[in-house]
């Protein structure tokens, strides 16, 4: 019958475009094609209008957050934005530990950043790449206001009191000729004026200038600048302060190459650093290299997550298949009752379930007590079934079992009993009839259940956190940790992106091997 209908298919498509060059016209004389397009457009518009709320919802709750995640996993603007001068100066200074010019820039940057309280965030950011950066920046932030640069202000003030007058400064800095002659001073003054207004709400024309502005003025003048309109002052006799020395005195870390290598590597606005970190790599002086042994944890966690998720999926199949089979073969009324029991895990709160698992699984728990009482175990040989991988597998299987049973059940419900009867009448014994005839037809249910369970398992983190101890946690727990504890959102985003990619890859592989058509959620 199917053969018969095919020949009659789509005659309009062929006939609407006849060999003759004259276009087909509709009854009112308009082009038929245009008329068709118009009527279809109205249909499409209506369909679009109907799905618009969902589309919008998905866009806002799904596409945008994932886009944000992808962006965060490579975004690194915090370094160039917090230390713009340092990043620029570093470009001209290839030395392992850079010279004075970079430290001068770092000083200005840090003073400004400290005012805005953003230097600690930068420290935290760089600490992901180089342990020790955080305390370096926090310490420097705390001490940068107490550097010896106040000698410049004093010397300029002694040389000419005009230099200590904020009103005069404001006038000078309004003059383009002065600004052109004193680039560093202008830059420092502008930054100072900005945070004086932004952070303190004061008028720059009335407040004493920061030491770093005088330091910049000293550098400009020492470099031979001739600003018009400023009182002339000879700075050659001034006592100079080595900012490099100041920083190194504050913390030896500034005099060592690591922090500078890190800064150089992570000065661009975008970085692959988070992704490298997420697969236990890092950018070293010689390019990409493996992290040290004690820091290599993510690959291992990804593998563990996959293995445990597969194990959980497998136990769900093993436990869920017979239950679904029973459900499908029972009469409706008993099946409904049993279904309530299957769905029970959905109805109990996580807290209740966790307590139940603890009571059951712990070493002094019900199961161990029973086994000891029955003489299966000795009192000292109690099983460890919680706070390890066993605990994770048991608890997750419990939670996810309904997701396996439901699709299996609905697929099995759709397999008529006559297939098995037919197989038996053809001479197959119970097992052969099941294995050769019933089971292959239930495979789409297993496929659907497995995909559901596996994808849910791979992203679970609350349950592993509660019962998994340290060995039974998933990559998602690390992601949660980086989101809420370490606040390394970039790494969390990179890990999340990789997890998403792994899931998509597995889905693709599944489609290739089994075929996604072979997945049925219902009979």
């Amino acid at each position, binding site marked *: 019958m199917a053969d018969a209908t095919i020949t009659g298919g789509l005659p309009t498509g062929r006939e609407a475009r006849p060999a003759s060059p004259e276009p087909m016209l509709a009854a009112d004389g308009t082009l038929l094609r245009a008329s068709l397009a118009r009527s279809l457009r109205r249909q499409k518009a209506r369909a679009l209008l109907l799905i618009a709320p969902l589309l919008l919802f998905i866009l806002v709750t799904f596409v945008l957050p994932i886009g944000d995640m992808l962006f965060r996993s490579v975004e690194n603007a915090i370094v160039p934005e917090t230390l713009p001068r340092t990043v620029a100066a570093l470009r001209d200074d290839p030395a392992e530990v850079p010279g004075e010019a970079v430290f001068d820039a770092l000083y200005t940057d840090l003073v400004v950043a400290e005012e805005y309280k953003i230097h600690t965030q930068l420290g935290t950011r760089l600490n992901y790449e180089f342990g020790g950066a955080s305390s370096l920046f926090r310490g420097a932030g705390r001490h940068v206001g107490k550097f010896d640069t106040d000698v410049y202000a004093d010397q300029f003030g002694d040389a000419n009191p005009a230099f200590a007058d904020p009103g005069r400064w404001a006038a000078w800095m309004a003059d383009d000729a002065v600004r052109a002659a004193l680039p560093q001073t202008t830059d420092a003054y502008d930054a100072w004026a900005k945070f004086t207004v932004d952070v303190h709400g004061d008028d720059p024309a009335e407040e004493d200038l920061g030491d770093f502005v005088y330091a910049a003025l000293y550098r400009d003048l020492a470099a031979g600048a001739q600003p018009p309109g400023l009182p002339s002052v000879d700075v050659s006799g001034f006592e100079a302060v080595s900012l490099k020395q100041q920083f190194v005195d504050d913390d030896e870390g500034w005099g060592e190459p690591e922090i500078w290598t890190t800064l150089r590597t992570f000065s661009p606005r975008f970085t692959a650093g988070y992704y490298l970190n997420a697969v236990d790599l890092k950018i070293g002086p010689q390019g990409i290299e493996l992290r040290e042994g004690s820091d290599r944890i993510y690959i291992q966690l990804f593998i563990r997550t996959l293995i445990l998720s597969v194990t959980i999926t497998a136990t769900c199949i093993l436990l869920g298949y017979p239950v679904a089979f029973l459900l499908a073969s029972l009469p409706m009324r008993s099946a409904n009752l049993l279904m309530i029991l299957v769905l029970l895990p959905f109805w109990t709160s996580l807290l209740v379930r966790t307590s139940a698992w603890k009571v059951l699984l712990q070493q002094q728990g019900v199961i161990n007590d029973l086994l000891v009482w029955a003489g299966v175990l000795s009192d000292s040989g109690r099983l460890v079934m919680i706070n390890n991988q066993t605990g994770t597998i048991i608890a997750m299987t419990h939670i996810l079992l309904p997701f396996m049973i439901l699709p299996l059940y609905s697929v099995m419900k759709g397999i008529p009993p006559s297939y098995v*009867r037919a197989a038996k*009448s053809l*001479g197959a014994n119970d097992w052969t009839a099941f294995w050769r005839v019933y089971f292959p037809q239930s495979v789409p249910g297993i496929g659907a259940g497995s995909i559901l369970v596996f994808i849910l398992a791979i992203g679970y983190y609350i349950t592993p956190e509660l019962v998994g101890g340290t060995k039974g946690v998933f990559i998602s727990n690390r992601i949660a940790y980086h989101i809420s504890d370490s606040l390394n959102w970039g790494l969390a985003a990179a890990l999340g992106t990789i997890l998403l990619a792994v899931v998509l890859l597995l889905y693709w592989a599944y489609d290739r091997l089994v075929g996604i058509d072979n997945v049925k959620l219902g009979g």
Partner: protein
Amino acid sequence: MVQASRDAAFVEFERVQKSYDGQTLVVKDLNLTIPKGEFLTMLGPSGSGKTTCLMMLAGFETATHGEIRLAGRNINDVPPHKRGIGMVFQNYALFPHMSVAENLAFPLEVRKMGQAEREAKVKRALDMVQMGKFANRRPAQLSGGQQQRIALARALVFEPELVLMDEPLGALDKQLREHMQFEIKHISDNLGITVVYVTHDQTEALTMSDRVAVFNDGRIQQLAPPDVLYEAPLNSFVAQFIGENNTLTGVVTAIDQGRCVVRLDSGDEIDAKPVNVSRVGDRTKVSIRPERVEFNKARLRSDAHTLRARVEEFIYMGDMFRTRLSVAGNDEFIIKSRNAPDQTRLQPGQEIEIGWLPEDCRALDAA
């Protein structure tokens, strides 16, 4: 058909009863003997117990009481797969995940048959149903009639001596069904196999079977060849279930050997052949086939009782005329007459006299 083997009881039901709930019997005291090579149809309305009987024979239901024998062996406790009975299911039950050839090879495979032999048999079975070209298709790619042929071929491929068919043509349209009826009958005759066929379609039963067992209310009402069943129903259920039938109710007023007089509720008296009545005063339903009613006085015996009738409706059916009459208070009385050149076309409103041969009018039970 092998007439010689008719006498040997191949399938036997002896005092078989079946109850699902322990309170009511769906099969009541079934006794049935099917000789080898016979095409036996179990016919009856749904719920009459015919399918249950088939399932008990196949082994999917167990008899609550009694014995079922196959070739003399009690098979009550033999599991279905060891009975060696071929079966064709209502919806074909072709395994959707296997190709046509794999479906056919399945019964041979589970019998551990070698590959070469298997392939040969599959090919022969497919050729038998003219489906040789479709060996590599999946069942879903076939039409209903094609699936039906494959199901038949699969039930036959392992050469069972007994084949059960559970309403195998129910899902086909009329034309295809008639074609398949012929084909099934043809194949079963050629192979000389015993067939037990379940249907609720009496035409199917009449055209295909050697014998038909009419089921109702858990019992066999009549077991007979189609012609006997049609022409000599033993009770009013069979009479009404098989073919078209006119009934008139009344009381027996006189009875002697092979002949009785029935006074109808309208007061008219007619002749009838006593079948289920034995005494004067018994209430009865008399049954007359529409094509046995005659309104042309010239063709009636002179001593025959006649009844007055009024024509209600005339229906032209091509090969036949079908006329609805009002007779003795029954206005659903049908007569059929052949479309012949000398045939009279009755007009609605016309008053006529009708009659029949007494042996065509069977006085049955009043149930």
